[in-house]
């Protein structure tokens, strides 16, 4: 029991975790972005869920309950001895959006990745974080063969409010991904400040 513990390491030895969520539609480069800045190769973990309703495409044999498995990719950046940052990619499929609440709870904010070839796949993510007043920025992942648009064109096409930063980037590139993380944290700090009257 607790009395047998003889450990001089206390809570000071445990860093405070912080989270950033990488969201966006299927195939927008979420895991690529996680991998480009993570200090560990992206890990995958699974949540086993009991599913109600139809549309199951992934059954696992847990008793006779109908369950489904949601895979989450994530990475880690050690900020300092006191802070460790986790990057979580959201499951792409729309029916797992309820999991985004768990991911976003207590998070610094979200980077919504956009693929200009499939703008519509990121509409919902933008709407989700906008409604919940979670700080987010939009990063256009500039795929090699994708049509190029300006930030203003993307903003207009996705009806992104002026207060939400929009930037162009390359999810494969470490510096580009770092820049997006910095931009998000600055944005979160600006929105965390009390309104200047």
């Amino acid at each position, binding site marked *: *029991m607790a009395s047998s513990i003889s*450990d001089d390491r206390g809570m000071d030895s445990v860093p405070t975790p912080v989270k950033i969520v990488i969201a966006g539609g299927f195939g927008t480069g979420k895991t690529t972005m996680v991998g480009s800045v993570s200090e560990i190769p992206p890990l995958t973990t699974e*949540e086993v869920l009991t599913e109600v309703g139809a549309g199951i495409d992934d059954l696992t044999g*847990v008793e006779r309950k109908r369950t489904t498995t949601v895979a989450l990719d994530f990475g880690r*950046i050690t900020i300092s001895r006191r802070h460790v940052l986790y990057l979580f990619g959201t499951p792409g499929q729309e029916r797992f959006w309820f999991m985004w609440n768990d991911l976003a709870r207590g998070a*610094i904010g979200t980077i919504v990745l956009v693929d200009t070839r499939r703008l519509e796949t990121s509409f919902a993510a933008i709407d989700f974080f906008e409604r919940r007043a979670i700080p987010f920025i939009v990063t256009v992942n500039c795929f090699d063969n994708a049509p190029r648009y300006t930030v203003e064109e993307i903003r207009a096409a996705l009806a992104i409010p002026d207060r939400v930063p929009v930037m162009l980037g390359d999810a494969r590139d470490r510096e580009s991904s770092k820049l997006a993380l910095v931009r998000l*944290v600055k944005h979160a700090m600006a929105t965390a400040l009390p309104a200047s009257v």
Partner: protein
Amino acid sequence: MNRDEGWYDESAGPLVRPYTITNGRTPTATAQLDLSTQVMALRAEREPTGLSPEHLAVVRLSRAPVSIAEIAAHLHLPLGVVRVLCGDLIDRGLVITRSPTNRSAQRPDLDTLQAVLDGLINL
């Protein structure tokens, strides 16, 4: 974290059904454990008794602070199972944890955001 140190390996597959490990319990009581919650095992004078192999695997993995998500990934266990296992270890005083914020709905405070910003810029 060296996966080879674990006694689970890729070929072991799902050895038992997830909710056999947790005796059918679901993680309602430990829902405050975030995916990023840091878990660190406290050094005990003697090997704790009455723990399942899965509990002991969690203790071994968390000698240095590690997240719930990493434990789940390395042990190939669903997140919900790892939450239950960690809840048991917390109850027995064998691990300590630190979550993103005291109240889970909260966002990180400005000091934390500044520390993260500085760290990212210096990467």
